[in-house]
């Protein structure tokens, strides 16, 4: 099968840069009798389906769960979700290819999303991304990528490391950031968004910010 060259374009138009093998029959809904699904994943997907009036609504939670297990939305992962949800793999592929957090090719276990949108880039996010990419090098454990606005412009420039928001980051924080992640420690604890107080000085009465700082955590 030769790849068909396509025009570069919107990232969300699936099939844009992927060739389709039109010789093959389209994949059908996988047969539960012959498809093996890990029990834990099956349970997670069934739980998700039970939460909605329509089972299709569970597509994103189910793909998240499968990705957690397989590392990415691999054909095998898609097959297993399709089997439990009783939908076609193509349907799930269409969903997985739309969303930035669902990976359609193999990636490192630890995700480092560096926000490079306006507010972060005004404060040096592009240099930060370059530094993180360089420091991570070709370590297969890491999935370093530029990400669109992560909704934390108050701690710009920032990154989301395995879902944990840290910032404002200096280039000098990068080695520690990667080291903490490798070691499975909380990443840059003093720079985590979770412990940050609101900027508005009038929001808190005198006693509360003091407590919050002492406890160090909400």
């Amino acid at each position: 099968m030769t790849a068909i060259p396509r025009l570069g374009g919107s990232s969300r138009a699936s099939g844009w840069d992927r060739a389709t093998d039109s010789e093959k029959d389209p994949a059908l809904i996988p047969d539960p009798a012959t498809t093996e699904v890990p029990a834990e994943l099956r349970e997670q997907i069934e739980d998700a389906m039970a939460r909605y009036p329509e089972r299709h609504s569970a597509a994103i939670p189910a793909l998240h769960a499968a990705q957690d297990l397989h590392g990415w939305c691999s054909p095998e992962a898609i097959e297993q979700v399709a089997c439990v949800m009783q939908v076609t793999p193509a349907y799930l592929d269409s969903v997985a290819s739309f969303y930035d957090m669902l990976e359609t090719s193999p990636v490192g276990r630890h995700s480092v999303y560096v926000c490079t949108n306006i507010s972060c880039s005004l404060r040096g996010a592009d240099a930060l991304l370059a530094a993180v990419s360089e420091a991570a090098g070709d370590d297969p454990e890491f999935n370093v990528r530029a990400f669109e606005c992560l909704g934390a412009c108050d701690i710009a420039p920032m990154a989301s490391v395995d879902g944990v928001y840290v910032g404002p980051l200096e280039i000098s924080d990068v080695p520690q950031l990667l080291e903490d992640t490798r070691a499975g420690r909380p990443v840059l604890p003093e720079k985590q968004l979770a412990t940050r107080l609101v900027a508005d000085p009038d929001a808190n009465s005198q006693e509360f910010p003091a407590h919050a700082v002492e406890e160090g955590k909400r």
Partner: protein
Amino acid sequence: MSDALLFKDIDEPGLNTLAVYEARGGYSALRKALQLTPAEVLEQLEASGLRGRGGAGFQMGKKVSFLPKGSMNKYLVCNADESEPGTFKDRELMQKNPHLLIEGIVIAAHAAGADRSFIYIRGEYVLQADILDAAIAEAREAGLIGERILGSDTTLSLVLHRGAGAYICGEETGLLDSLEGKRGNPRLKPPFPANQGLYQGPTLINNVETLSTVPAIMQMGGEQYARLGVQSSTGTKLVSISGHVQRPGNYEIELGVPSREIIYGLAGGPPEGSEIKCWFPGGSSSPVLTPAELDIPYDFDSLAKAGSMLGSGAIIVVDEHTPIVELALKVAKFYRHESCGKCTPCREGTNWTVKMLERIDNGEATPMDLDIMASVQDHIIGNCLCVLGDAMAMPIGSMIAKFRDEFEQHIETARMRNNLTLTPAPADEQVLFAGGSA
């Protein structure tokens, strides 16, 4: 602001738990609302004049009143997909005061007659989603959501739905498709979600901040709330300030204060020794304003009159050292990436705008290209199912209009630097279709 409604003691330890929230009077607004009929609650919401805090600024009470009456499955969806660049206010609310949002949802659902509700939170907000999940479980346990809430006839289920990273899912119909388990493509309107929304049922969609304001309205009464702020922009608003300011962060302001007071007074203005070049008053989708426009009152109508918008209440300040072309390119690339690809003007328009800006950045453009680029923006606006394309076209258009000299100068400087002539030499190979590489 001395009388914070949303941010009052927001950092009180344990506020995210039901015990602390109730100890300081939480859920008393819900108790009050459940004593009233849905029509009476709606009356309060309409009297408050509360306008949507997500971006469009539509009157919340009116939105609720659009839902058909009668017994049928109606839905309430809370839009927590906060992804407008520069916006991070809902994040702070959900992380620190999740029960305020839940209380607002139950009251609004009571007014709208909805019996099923969902919170669509962006997938990146892991911490906030975990906190909300715990708060929902607590509220369910305490009978604050579920069957016959607090012994009344009102029933409401609440499910937290985590997205997976797509700006377009903050658009209400894109959100609905995504919540139904599809790609987040926007739908044609009409029918509007109030008539045909989630699972084809009548649906009320509101932003986190809008719903979190509802308990305060029930407590103080709609009319009293309407005294805050200015006419047609009532109440308080959370403002997220970022970019080149000394104290970036979230602030609760009363609508109608001068923008200068927010940027300089609260956020400390740009760092010592630099001046503001331009500022986005309401997220990256809003047309930029200049320092000369800093005295505009920060409210919906005043900003609209100035040719921009309040949007999500996200101010991004850009200082004089930032090249405007670089800024425009950043904005355009974002919208190109986030375009769902359904409508041609947006899919192609965002793509071509990026290419033209890159040509400008490299000095390969002529000043005439600026006019072509402005016309591309004109052809996007109003021609798509949703406003994602418009959201790029408006700021880019405003940058070209307000900083045209700098664009032209940028082209000239880059042209000289890269040693380019204005009339390119004919290429050796005949280009049959230049779309891929231009």
